[in-house]
Protein backbone atom coordinates (compact mmCIF):
# COMPACT_ATOMS: atom_id res chain seq x y z
CA UNK A 1 0.00 0.00 0.00
CA UNK A 2 2.77 2.55 0.56
CA UNK A 3 3.33 3.05 -3.14
CA UNK A 4 -0.02 4.55 -4.14
CA UNK A 5 0.01 6.76 -1.07
CA UNK A 6 3.39 8.14 -2.07
CA UNK A 7 2.17 8.56 -5.57
CA UNK A 8 -0.76 10.57 -4.36
CA UNK A 9 1.39 12.63 -2.07
CA UNK A 10 3.94 13.44 -4.73
CA UNK A 11 1.09 14.25 -7.07
CA UNK A 12 -0.41 16.70 -4.62
CA UNK A 13 2.95 18.19 -3.77
CA UNK A 14 3.92 18.85 -7.33
CA UNK A 15 0.45 20.21 -8.08
CA UNK A 16 0.70 22.86 -5.40
CA UNK A 17 4.40 23.52 -4.72
CA UNK A 18 6.13 24.02 -8.10
CA UNK A 19 3.70 26.53 -9.47
CA UNK A 20 1.42 24.95 -12.07
CA UNK A 21 4.19 23.84 -14.41
CA UNK A 22 3.03 20.94 -16.54
CA UNK A 23 -0.38 20.83 -14.88
CA UNK A 24 -2.11 20.01 -18.13
CA UNK A 25 0.76 18.31 -20.00
CA UNK A 26 -0.15 14.78 -20.97
CA UNK A 27 2.00 11.75 -21.68
CA UNK A 28 1.64 9.24 -24.48
CA UNK A 29 0.37 6.58 -22.05
CA UNK A 30 -2.50 8.76 -20.91
CA UNK A 31 -3.49 9.53 -24.47
CA UNK A 32 -3.37 5.81 -25.28
CA UNK A 33 -5.60 4.95 -22.31
CA UNK A 34 -8.15 7.63 -23.21
CA UNK A 35 -8.13 6.46 -26.82
CA UNK A 36 -8.79 2.88 -25.73
CA UNK A 37 -11.65 4.00 -23.48
CA UNK A 38 -13.21 6.00 -26.28
CA UNK A 39 -12.91 3.44 -29.06
CA UNK A 40 -13.86 0.36 -27.02
CA UNK A 41 -17.33 1.69 -26.21
CA UNK A 42 -20.16 0.76 -28.54
CA UNK A 43 -21.98 4.08 -28.20
CA UNK A 44 -19.02 6.01 -29.67
CA UNK A 45 -19.28 4.24 -33.01
CA UNK A 46 -23.05 4.06 -32.88
CA UNK A 47 -23.24 7.82 -32.37
CA UNK A 48 -20.83 8.57 -35.19
CA UNK A 49 -22.63 6.16 -37.49
CA UNK A 50 -25.99 7.79 -36.67
CA UNK A 51 -24.47 11.18 -37.44
CA UNK A 52 -23.11 10.00 -40.79
CA UNK A 53 -26.33 8.27 -41.86
CA UNK A 54 -28.67 11.10 -40.92
CA UNK A 55 -26.50 13.88 -42.28
CA UNK A 56 -25.91 12.12 -45.58
CA UNK A 57 -29.50 10.99 -46.01
CA UNK A 58 -31.01 14.40 -45.19
CA UNK A 59 -28.41 16.26 -47.26
CA UNK A 60 -28.82 14.09 -50.33
CA UNK A 61 -32.61 14.04 -50.19
CA UNK A 62 -32.76 17.77 -49.69
CA UNK A 63 -30.41 18.32 -52.63
CA UNK A 64 -32.54 15.94 -54.67
CA UNK A 65 -35.67 17.92 -53.86
CA UNK A 66 -33.95 21.04 -55.26
CA UNK A 67 -32.73 19.41 -58.46
CA UNK A 68 -36.14 17.84 -59.00
CA UNK A 69 -38.05 21.08 -58.63
CA UNK A 70 -35.41 23.46 -60.06
CA UNK A 71 -37.25 24.04 -63.35
CA UNK A 72 -40.43 25.13 -61.59
CA UNK A 73 -38.78 27.17 -58.81
CA UNK A 74 -39.50 30.92 -58.60
CA UNK A 75 -36.75 33.39 -59.46
CA UNK A 76 -36.58 34.50 -55.82
CA UNK A 77 -36.11 30.92 -54.63
CA UNK A 78 -33.40 30.43 -57.25
CA UNK A 79 -31.61 33.58 -56.18
CA UNK A 80 -31.53 32.54 -52.52
CA UNK A 81 -30.34 29.02 -53.39
CA UNK A 82 -27.12 28.16 -51.57
CA UNK A 83 -25.39 25.12 -53.10
CA UNK A 84 -23.85 24.19 -49.75
CA UNK A 85 -26.87 24.73 -47.51
CA UNK A 86 -28.91 21.96 -49.16
CA UNK A 87 -26.25 19.29 -48.70
CA UNK A 88 -25.75 20.41 -45.11
CA UNK A 89 -29.50 20.38 -44.34
CA UNK A 90 -29.11 17.49 -41.90
CA UNK A 91 -26.00 18.83 -40.22
CA UNK A 92 -27.88 19.70 -37.02
CA UNK A 93 -28.48 16.03 -36.38
CA UNK A 94 -24.74 15.56 -36.79
CA UNK A 95 -24.09 18.36 -34.31
CA UNK A 96 -26.45 16.77 -31.81
CA UNK A 97 -24.63 13.43 -32.18
CA UNK A 98 -21.21 15.06 -31.71
CA UNK A 99 -22.40 16.98 -28.67
CA UNK A 100 -23.80 13.81 -27.11
CA UNK A 101 -20.54 12.03 -27.87
CA UNK A 102 -18.63 14.76 -26.07
CA UNK A 103 -20.90 14.55 -23.02
CA UNK A 104 -20.68 10.76 -22.85
CA UNK A 105 -16.88 10.85 -23.13
CA UNK A 106 -16.79 12.04 -19.54
CA UNK A 107 -20.20 11.74 -17.86
CA UNK A 108 -20.22 7.94 -18.21
CA UNK A 109 -17.00 7.68 -16.20
CA UNK A 110 -18.67 9.48 -13.32
CA UNK A 111 -21.85 7.40 -13.57
CA UNK A 112 -20.12 4.04 -13.66
CA UNK A 113 -17.45 4.96 -11.13
CA UNK A 114 -14.70 4.35 -13.69
CA UNK A 115 -13.38 7.83 -12.88
CA UNK A 116 -12.00 6.49 -9.58
CA UNK A 117 -9.82 4.01 -11.47
CA UNK A 118 -8.75 6.75 -13.86
CA UNK A 119 -7.76 9.06 -11.01
CA UNK A 120 -5.93 6.25 -9.21
CA UNK A 121 -3.83 5.74 -12.31
CA UNK A 122 -3.37 9.46 -12.97
CA UNK A 123 -3.99 11.53 -9.84
CA UNK A 124 -3.43 14.82 -11.67
CA UNK A 125 -6.92 15.76 -12.71
CA UNK A 126 -5.84 18.52 -15.03
CA UNK A 127 -3.88 16.01 -17.04
CA UNK A 128 -6.81 13.60 -17.25
CA UNK A 129 -9.04 16.43 -18.45
CA UNK A 130 -6.48 17.53 -21.03
CA UNK A 131 -5.82 13.99 -22.28
CA UNK A 132 -9.53 13.38 -22.74
CA UNK A 133 -9.96 16.72 -24.48
CA UNK A 134 -7.05 16.03 -26.85
CA UNK A 135 -8.24 12.52 -27.75
CA UNK A 136 -11.93 13.45 -27.96
CA UNK A 137 -11.20 16.68 -29.81
CA UNK A 138 -8.88 14.90 -32.25
CA UNK A 139 -11.39 12.16 -32.99
CA UNK A 140 -14.25 14.63 -33.39
CA UNK A 141 -12.26 17.00 -35.60
CA UNK A 142 -11.20 14.14 -37.87
CA UNK A 143 -14.68 12.65 -37.98
CA UNK A 144 -16.26 16.09 -38.40
CA UNK A 145 -14.04 17.03 -41.33
CA UNK A 146 -14.61 13.63 -42.95
CA UNK A 147 -18.37 14.02 -42.50
CA UNK A 148 -18.36 17.55 -43.94
CA UNK A 149 -16.29 16.61 -47.00
CA UNK A 150 -18.24 13.43 -47.75
CA UNK A 151 -21.54 15.30 -47.47
CA UNK A 152 -20.21 18.13 -49.62
CA UNK A 153 -18.99 15.77 -52.36
CA UNK A 154 -22.25 13.81 -52.33
CA UNK A 155 -24.34 16.99 -52.57
CA UNK A 156 -22.27 18.50 -55.38
CA UNK A 157 -22.37 15.24 -57.29
CA UNK A 158 -26.17 15.43 -57.27
CA UNK A 159 -26.23 19.14 -58.13
CA UNK A 160 -23.89 18.59 -61.07
CA UNK A 161 -26.79 16.98 -62.95
CA UNK A 162 -28.28 20.50 -63.26
CA UNK A 163 -24.87 22.22 -63.44
CA UNK A 164 -25.59 23.90 -60.11
CA UNK A 165 -22.53 22.51 -58.37
CA UNK A 166 -19.59 24.47 -56.95
CA UNK A 167 -15.98 23.35 -56.67
CA UNK A 168 -13.77 23.36 -53.60
CA UNK A 169 -11.53 25.91 -55.34
CA UNK A 170 -14.41 28.41 -55.76
CA UNK A 171 -14.27 31.38 -53.40
CA UNK A 172 -15.35 30.56 -49.86
CA UNK A 173 -16.25 26.94 -50.55
CA UNK A 174 -13.25 25.27 -48.93
CA UNK A 175 -13.68 27.54 -45.91
CA UNK A 176 -17.35 26.65 -45.55
CA UNK A 177 -16.73 22.92 -45.70
CA UNK A 178 -13.73 23.04 -43.37
CA UNK A 179 -15.64 25.27 -40.93
CA UNK A 180 -18.50 22.76 -40.85
CA UNK A 181 -16.07 20.08 -39.70
CA UNK A 182 -14.54 22.48 -37.21
CA UNK A 183 -17.96 23.46 -35.89
CA UNK A 184 -18.87 19.81 -35.28
CA UNK A 185 -15.71 19.42 -33.18
CA UNK A 186 -16.47 22.64 -31.27
CA UNK A 187 -19.98 21.40 -30.44
CA UNK A 188 -18.49 18.08 -29.31
CA UNK A 189 -16.00 19.83 -27.04
CA UNK A 190 -18.71 22.07 -25.58
CA UNK A 191 -20.55 18.84 -24.76
CA UNK A 192 -17.38 17.52 -23.20
CA UNK A 193 -16.94 20.62 -21.06
CA UNK A 194 -20.57 20.42 -19.92
CA UNK A 195 -20.20 16.70 -19.18
CA UNK A 196 -17.24 17.47 -16.93
CA UNK A 197 -19.09 20.37 -15.33
CA UNK A 198 -22.39 18.59 -14.65
CA UNK A 199 -21.26 14.93 -14.45
CA UNK A 200 -24.73 13.65 -15.35
CA UNK A 201 -25.54 12.47 -18.84
CA UNK A 202 -29.14 13.64 -18.89
CA UNK A 203 -28.42 17.04 -17.37
CA UNK A 204 -25.40 17.72 -19.57
CA UNK A 205 -27.17 16.72 -22.80
CA UNK A 206 -30.16 18.89 -21.91
CA UNK A 207 -28.01 21.91 -21.13
CA UNK A 208 -25.92 21.34 -24.26
CA UNK A 209 -29.04 21.22 -26.38
CA UNK A 210 -30.49 24.30 -24.70
CA UNK A 211 -27.26 26.28 -25.12
CA UNK A 212 -26.94 25.48 -28.81
CA UNK A 213 -30.48 25.29 -30.16
CA UNK A 214 -32.94 26.82 -27.75
CA UNK A 215 -31.08 30.02 -26.87
CA UNK A 216 -32.67 31.61 -29.92
CA UNK A 217 -35.83 31.80 -27.81
CA UNK A 218 -33.94 33.97 -25.35
CA UNK A 219 -32.34 36.20 -27.98
CA UNK A 220 -35.57 36.63 -29.95
CA UNK A 221 -37.19 37.77 -26.72
CA UNK A 222 -34.87 40.77 -26.55
CA UNK A 223 -34.61 41.36 -30.31
CA UNK A 224 -36.69 44.53 -30.19
CA UNK A 225 -33.97 46.04 -28.03
CA UNK A 226 -30.89 44.68 -29.77
CA UNK A 227 -29.69 42.10 -32.26
CA UNK A 228 -26.39 41.71 -30.44
CA UNK A 229 -27.41 38.61 -28.41
CA UNK A 230 -28.53 36.97 -31.68
CA UNK A 231 -25.08 37.47 -33.13
CA UNK A 232 -23.53 35.71 -30.15
CA UNK A 233 -25.45 32.49 -30.69
CA UNK A 234 -23.40 29.50 -31.79
CA UNK A 235 -25.88 28.76 -34.56
CA UNK A 236 -25.51 32.30 -35.91
CA UNK A 237 -21.72 31.92 -35.93
CA UNK A 238 -22.11 28.69 -37.85
CA UNK A 239 -24.53 30.32 -40.30
CA UNK A 240 -21.93 32.96 -41.08
CA UNK A 241 -19.10 30.47 -41.46
CA UNK A 242 -20.96 27.87 -43.51
CA UNK A 243 -22.74 29.96 -46.12
CA UNK A 244 -21.17 31.18 -49.34
CA UNK A 245 -23.96 33.65 -50.11
CA UNK A 246 -24.52 36.24 -47.41
CA UNK A 247 -27.98 36.21 -45.85
CA UNK A 248 -30.61 38.86 -46.35
CA UNK A 249 -33.36 40.50 -44.32
CA UNK A 250 -33.69 39.79 -40.60
CA UNK A 251 -31.31 36.83 -40.88
CA UNK A 252 -28.56 39.24 -41.96
CA UNK A 253 -29.11 41.32 -38.81
CA UNK A 254 -28.66 38.19 -36.71
CA UNK A 255 -25.43 37.13 -38.42
CA UNK A 256 -22.02 38.11 -37.01
CA UNK A 257 -19.09 39.00 -39.28
CA UNK A 258 -16.70 36.21 -40.23
CA UNK A 259 -14.00 37.40 -37.83
CA UNK A 260 -16.51 37.71 -35.00
CA UNK A 261 -17.81 34.24 -35.76
CA UNK A 262 -14.35 32.74 -35.32
CA UNK A 263 -13.79 34.74 -32.14
CA UNK A 264 -17.14 33.50 -30.78
CA UNK A 265 -16.29 29.86 -31.46
CA UNK A 266 -12.97 30.34 -29.65
CA UNK A 267 -14.67 32.01 -26.68
CA UNK A 268 -17.36 29.32 -26.40
CA UNK A 269 -14.65 26.67 -26.51
CA UNK A 270 -12.55 28.44 -23.88
CA UNK A 271 -15.48 29.07 -21.53
CA UNK A 272 -16.90 25.54 -21.59
CA UNK A 273 -13.55 23.76 -21.50
CA UNK A 274 -12.49 26.14 -18.74
CA UNK A 275 -15.61 25.40 -16.69
CA UNK A 276 -15.09 21.67 -17.17
CA UNK A 277 -11.42 21.86 -16.18
CA UNK A 278 -12.26 23.96 -13.11
CA UNK A 279 -14.94 21.53 -11.93
CA UNK A 280 -12.86 18.46 -12.60
CA UNK A 281 -10.00 19.76 -10.48
CA UNK A 282 -12.45 19.93 -7.53
CA UNK A 283 -13.29 16.79 -5.57
CA UNK A 284 -14.49 13.81 -7.58
Amino acid sequence: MPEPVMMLRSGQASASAPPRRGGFLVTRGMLASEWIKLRSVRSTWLTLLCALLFVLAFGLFDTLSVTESWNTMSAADKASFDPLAEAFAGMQIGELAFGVLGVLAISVEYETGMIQTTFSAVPRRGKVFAAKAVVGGGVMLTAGLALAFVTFLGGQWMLSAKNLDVQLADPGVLRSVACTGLYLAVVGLIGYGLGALIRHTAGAISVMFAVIWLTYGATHAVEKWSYLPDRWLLVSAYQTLSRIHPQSGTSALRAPTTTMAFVELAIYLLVFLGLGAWRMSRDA
Partner: protein
Amino acid sequence: MTAQSSLPQRGVLRSFLPGRGVLRSEWIKLRSVRSTYLSVLFATLVAVVLGVLATSSDASNWATMTAQDKAQFDPLGDSFIGLIFGELAFGVLGVLAISTEYRTGMIRATFSAVPQRGRVYAAKALVVGVVSLVLGMLLVFGSFFLGQAMLSSKHLEVHLGDPGVLRVVLSAGLYLFVVTMIGFGLGAILRHSAGAIAALVAMLWLAYPIGRVLDHLSYLPSRILLFNIADAITRTHAATGKPALRIPSLELAYSSLALYLVVFLALGAWRISRDA
Protein backbone atom coordinates in the same frame (compact mmCIF):
# COMPACT_ATOMS: atom_id res chain seq x y z
CA MET B 1 -45.77 -14.53 -15.85
CA THR B 2 -47.25 -18.04 -15.97
CA ALA B 3 -50.35 -17.02 -14.12
CA GLN B 4 -50.78 -14.11 -16.46
CA SER B 5 -50.44 -16.17 -19.63
CA SER B 6 -52.84 -18.86 -18.41
CA LEU B 7 -55.55 -16.25 -17.94
CA PRO B 8 -57.09 -15.74 -21.36
CA GLN B 9 -58.06 -12.28 -22.73
CA ARG B 10 -59.45 -10.85 -19.50
CA GLY B 11 -55.94 -10.82 -18.06
CA VAL B 12 -54.64 -8.52 -20.78
CA LEU B 13 -56.67 -5.53 -19.68
CA ARG B 14 -56.38 -6.35 -16.04
CA SER B 15 -52.61 -6.58 -16.33
CA PHE B 16 -52.53 -2.84 -17.03
CA LEU B 17 -54.70 -1.85 -14.04
CA PRO B 18 -52.39 -0.50 -11.35
CA GLY B 19 -53.40 -0.81 -7.72
CA ARG B 20 -53.18 2.05 -5.25
CA GLY B 21 -49.95 0.68 -3.79
CA VAL B 22 -48.21 0.67 -7.16
CA LEU B 23 -49.32 4.22 -7.82
CA ARG B 24 -48.06 5.34 -4.45
CA SER B 25 -44.66 3.74 -4.94
CA GLU B 26 -44.28 5.41 -8.34
CA TRP B 27 -45.27 8.75 -6.84
CA ILE B 28 -42.67 8.37 -4.09
CA LYS B 29 -40.00 7.45 -6.63
CA LEU B 30 -40.81 10.50 -8.74
CA ARG B 31 -41.01 13.05 -5.96
CA SER B 32 -38.01 11.85 -3.97
CA VAL B 33 -35.54 12.44 -6.80
CA ARG B 34 -33.70 15.75 -6.96
CA SER B 35 -33.64 15.90 -10.76
CA THR B 36 -37.44 16.03 -10.88
CA TYR B 37 -37.46 19.30 -8.98
CA LEU B 38 -34.41 20.63 -10.76
CA SER B 39 -35.85 20.12 -14.22
CA VAL B 40 -39.26 21.53 -13.34
CA LEU B 41 -37.72 24.50 -11.55
CA PHE B 42 -35.41 25.17 -14.49
CA ALA B 43 -38.30 24.97 -16.93
CA THR B 44 -40.46 27.33 -14.89
CA LEU B 45 -37.76 29.92 -14.30
CA VAL B 46 -36.52 30.14 -17.88
CA ALA B 47 -39.98 30.01 -19.43
CA VAL B 48 -41.41 32.70 -17.16
CA VAL B 49 -38.38 35.00 -17.35
CA LEU B 50 -38.19 34.84 -21.15
CA GLY B 51 -41.92 35.38 -21.53
CA VAL B 52 -41.72 38.46 -19.30
CA LEU B 53 -38.66 39.75 -21.18
CA ALA B 54 -40.32 39.35 -24.59
CA THR B 55 -43.60 40.94 -23.60
CA SER B 56 -41.99 43.82 -21.74
CA SER B 57 -39.77 44.48 -24.77
CA ASP B 58 -42.91 44.56 -26.92
CA ALA B 59 -44.51 47.03 -24.55
CA SER B 60 -41.49 49.33 -24.25
CA ASN B 61 -40.67 49.32 -27.97
CA TRP B 62 -44.23 49.46 -29.27
CA ALA B 63 -44.07 53.17 -30.15
CA THR B 64 -41.05 52.71 -32.43
CA MET B 65 -42.01 49.40 -34.04
CA THR B 66 -42.66 49.27 -37.80
CA ALA B 67 -46.19 48.68 -39.08
CA GLN B 68 -45.08 45.27 -40.37
CA ASP B 69 -43.76 44.26 -36.95
CA LYS B 70 -46.96 45.46 -35.35
CA ALA B 71 -49.04 43.40 -37.78
CA GLN B 72 -47.04 40.30 -36.91
CA PHE B 73 -47.25 40.93 -33.17
CA ASP B 74 -48.69 37.93 -31.35
CA PRO B 75 -49.48 38.63 -27.68
CA LEU B 76 -49.72 34.91 -26.88
CA GLY B 77 -46.68 33.82 -28.87
CA ASP B 78 -44.49 36.31 -27.04
CA SER B 79 -45.62 35.24 -23.56
CA PHE B 80 -44.95 31.62 -24.58
CA ILE B 81 -41.55 32.27 -26.18
CA GLY B 82 -39.74 30.51 -23.31
CA LEU B 83 -41.91 27.41 -23.41
CA ILE B 84 -39.35 25.65 -25.64
CA PHE B 85 -37.18 25.34 -22.54
CA GLY B 86 -40.22 24.00 -20.71
CA GLU B 87 -40.72 21.37 -23.41
CA LEU B 88 -37.09 20.28 -23.09
CA ALA B 89 -37.27 20.02 -19.30
CA PHE B 90 -40.64 18.21 -19.29
CA GLY B 91 -39.49 15.80 -22.00
CA VAL B 92 -36.29 15.02 -20.07
CA LEU B 93 -38.40 14.48 -16.95
CA GLY B 94 -40.45 11.91 -18.85
CA VAL B 95 -37.33 10.11 -20.10
CA LEU B 96 -35.68 10.03 -16.68
CA ALA B 97 -38.84 8.74 -14.99
CA ILE B 98 -38.09 5.38 -16.53
CA SER B 99 -34.55 5.28 -17.97
CA THR B 100 -32.96 5.90 -14.57
CA GLU B 101 -34.52 2.75 -13.16
CA TYR B 102 -32.81 0.70 -15.84
CA ARG B 103 -29.45 2.41 -15.34
CA THR B 104 -29.39 2.04 -11.56
CA GLY B 105 -30.88 -1.46 -11.58
CA MET B 106 -33.83 -0.24 -9.49
CA ILE B 107 -36.12 -1.78 -12.09
CA ARG B 108 -35.31 -5.23 -10.67
CA ALA B 109 -36.59 -4.24 -7.25
CA THR B 110 -39.66 -2.73 -8.91
CA PHE B 111 -40.39 -5.90 -10.89
CA SER B 112 -39.80 -8.09 -7.84
CA ALA B 113 -42.45 -6.10 -6.00
CA VAL B 114 -44.85 -5.97 -8.96
CA PRO B 115 -44.09 -8.72 -11.48
CA GLN B 116 -46.83 -7.60 -13.90
CA ARG B 117 -44.89 -5.22 -16.08
CA GLY B 118 -47.97 -3.73 -17.64
CA ARG B 119 -49.11 -2.53 -14.22
CA VAL B 120 -45.76 -0.95 -13.43
CA TYR B 121 -45.80 0.80 -16.79
CA ALA B 122 -49.38 2.01 -16.40
CA ALA B 123 -48.73 3.26 -12.87
CA LYS B 124 -45.65 5.16 -13.98
CA ALA B 125 -47.43 6.61 -16.99
CA LEU B 126 -50.35 7.71 -14.84
CA VAL B 127 -48.19 9.40 -12.21
CA VAL B 128 -45.88 11.10 -14.73
CA GLY B 129 -48.85 12.08 -16.87
CA VAL B 130 -50.84 13.66 -14.05
CA VAL B 131 -47.80 15.47 -12.66
CA SER B 132 -46.81 16.87 -16.06
CA LEU B 133 -50.36 17.86 -16.90
CA VAL B 134 -50.85 19.72 -13.62
CA LEU B 135 -47.43 21.40 -13.69
CA GLY B 136 -47.73 22.13 -17.40
CA MET B 137 -51.06 23.89 -16.93
CA LEU B 138 -49.65 25.89 -14.00
CA LEU B 139 -46.69 26.89 -16.14
CA VAL B 140 -48.69 28.03 -19.17
CA PHE B 141 -51.31 29.89 -17.15
CA GLY B 142 -48.54 31.53 -15.10
CA SER B 143 -46.68 32.59 -18.27
CA PHE B 144 -49.92 33.79 -19.82
CA PHE B 145 -51.01 35.99 -16.93
CA LEU B 146 -47.52 37.45 -16.34
CA GLY B 147 -47.06 38.17 -20.05
CA GLN B 148 -50.45 39.84 -20.37
CA ALA B 149 -49.72 41.92 -17.28
CA MET B 150 -46.59 43.24 -19.00
CA LEU B 151 -48.53 44.04 -22.17
CA SER B 152 -51.40 45.74 -20.33
CA SER B 153 -49.36 48.94 -19.85
CA LYS B 154 -49.79 49.58 -23.60
CA HIS B 155 -53.24 47.95 -23.72
CA LEU B 156 -51.92 45.22 -26.00
CA GLU B 157 -53.08 42.35 -23.83
CA VAL B 158 -55.65 39.67 -24.63
CA HIS B 159 -58.05 38.03 -22.17
CA LEU B 160 -58.98 34.42 -21.57
CA GLY B 161 -62.50 35.24 -22.76
CA ASP B 162 -61.30 36.49 -26.16
CA PRO B 163 -61.93 34.13 -29.08
CA GLY B 164 -59.47 31.25 -29.20
CA VAL B 165 -57.33 32.44 -26.29
CA LEU B 166 -58.43 29.90 -23.70
CA ARG B 167 -58.07 27.11 -26.26
CA VAL B 168 -54.50 28.20 -27.10
CA VAL B 169 -53.43 28.39 -23.45
CA LEU B 170 -54.94 24.96 -22.70
CA SER B 171 -53.30 23.55 -25.84
CA ALA B 172 -49.88 24.82 -24.77
CA GLY B 173 -50.28 22.96 -21.46
CA LEU B 174 -51.55 19.89 -23.28
CA TYR B 175 -48.53 19.99 -25.58
CA LEU B 176 -46.17 19.97 -22.58
CA PHE B 177 -47.99 16.89 -21.32
CA VAL B 178 -47.71 15.10 -24.68
CA VAL B 179 -44.00 15.93 -24.95
CA THR B 180 -43.48 14.48 -21.47
CA MET B 181 -45.28 11.29 -22.41
CA ILE B 182 -43.35 10.95 -25.68
CA GLY B 183 -40.17 11.25 -23.60
CA PHE B 184 -41.55 8.64 -21.22
CA GLY B 185 -42.30 6.26 -24.09
CA LEU B 186 -38.85 6.83 -25.60
CA GLY B 187 -37.24 6.18 -22.22
CA ALA B 188 -39.09 2.86 -21.99
CA ILE B 189 -38.18 1.93 -25.56
CA LEU B 190 -34.48 2.84 -25.44
CA ARG B 191 -33.75 2.41 -21.70
CA HIS B 192 -30.79 4.82 -21.97
CA SER B 193 -31.05 8.45 -20.90
CA ALA B 194 -28.58 9.74 -23.49
CA GLY B 195 -30.16 7.92 -26.42
CA ALA B 196 -33.72 8.72 -25.41
CA ILE B 197 -33.05 12.43 -24.81
CA ALA B 198 -31.16 12.72 -28.09
CA ALA B 199 -34.01 11.00 -29.95
CA LEU B 200 -36.55 13.24 -28.24
CA VAL B 201 -34.87 16.55 -29.06
CA ALA B 202 -34.17 15.37 -32.61
CA MET B 203 -37.89 14.63 -33.03
CA LEU B 204 -39.03 17.85 -31.42
CA TRP B 205 -36.71 20.35 -33.07
CA LEU B 206 -34.38 18.83 -35.63
CA ALA B 207 -36.79 16.79 -37.73
CA TYR B 208 -37.86 19.61 -40.03
CA PRO B 209 -35.42 18.60 -42.83
CA ILE B 210 -37.44 15.38 -43.22
CA GLY B 211 -40.52 17.44 -43.91
CA ARG B 212 -38.71 19.91 -46.16
CA VAL B 213 -37.21 17.12 -48.24
CA LEU B 214 -40.67 15.82 -49.06
CA ASP B 215 -42.36 19.22 -49.44
CA HIS B 216 -42.31 19.10 -53.24
CA LEU B 217 -44.25 15.83 -53.17
CA SER B 218 -46.63 16.59 -50.31
CA TYR B 219 -46.85 18.92 -47.33
CA LEU B 220 -48.34 16.20 -45.16
CA PRO B 221 -45.01 15.02 -43.63
CA SER B 222 -44.21 18.62 -42.63
CA ARG B 223 -47.69 19.01 -41.18
CA ILE B 224 -47.41 16.08 -38.82
CA LEU B 225 -44.05 17.16 -37.37
CA LEU B 226 -44.37 18.01 -33.68
CA PHE B 227 -42.83 21.43 -34.26
CA ASN B 228 -45.55 22.40 -36.75
CA ILE B 229 -48.31 20.82 -34.68
CA ALA B 230 -47.24 22.98 -31.75
CA ASP B 231 -47.30 26.01 -34.02
CA ALA B 232 -50.80 25.19 -35.24
CA ILE B 233 -52.40 24.68 -31.84
CA THR B 234 -50.80 27.70 -30.15
CA ARG B 235 -51.28 30.48 -32.67
CA THR B 236 -54.16 32.92 -32.79
CA HIS B 237 -53.26 34.63 -36.09
CA ALA B 238 -53.20 32.67 -39.35
CA ALA B 239 -49.72 32.17 -40.81
CA THR B 240 -48.84 33.50 -44.27
CA GLY B 241 -46.53 32.50 -47.10
CA LYS B 242 -44.69 29.23 -47.43
CA PRO B 243 -44.63 28.38 -43.70
CA ALA B 244 -48.45 28.41 -43.74
CA LEU B 245 -48.41 25.41 -46.08
CA ARG B 246 -46.49 23.40 -43.50
CA ILE B 247 -48.89 24.14 -40.65
CA PRO B 248 -51.64 21.55 -40.20
CA SER B 249 -55.33 22.31 -39.71
CA LEU B 250 -56.51 22.16 -36.10
CA GLU B 251 -58.25 18.81 -36.63
CA LEU B 252 -55.11 17.28 -38.13
CA ALA B 253 -52.94 18.83 -35.41
CA TYR B 254 -54.97 17.48 -32.49
CA SER B 255 -55.45 14.06 -34.04
CA SER B 256 -51.77 13.63 -34.89
CA LEU B 257 -50.88 14.75 -31.37
CA ALA B 258 -53.16 11.99 -30.05
CA LEU B 259 -51.53 9.56 -32.47
CA TYR B 260 -48.04 10.47 -31.21
CA LEU B 261 -49.21 9.89 -27.65
CA VAL B 262 -50.73 6.49 -28.40
CA VAL B 263 -47.85 5.25 -30.60
CA PHE B 264 -45.06 6.13 -28.17
CA LEU B 265 -46.90 4.89 -25.09
CA ALA B 266 -47.77 1.65 -26.91
CA LEU B 267 -44.20 1.10 -28.11
CA GLY B 268 -42.96 1.67 -24.57
CA ALA B 269 -45.55 -0.76 -23.18
CA TRP B 270 -44.58 -3.36 -25.75
CA ARG B 271 -40.89 -3.01 -24.97
CA ILE B 272 -41.27 -3.08 -21.18
CA SER B 273 -43.22 -6.34 -21.39
CA ARG B 274 -40.18 -7.96 -23.10
CA ASP B 275 -37.24 -9.15 -21.03
CA ALA B 276 -35.73 -6.55 -18.73
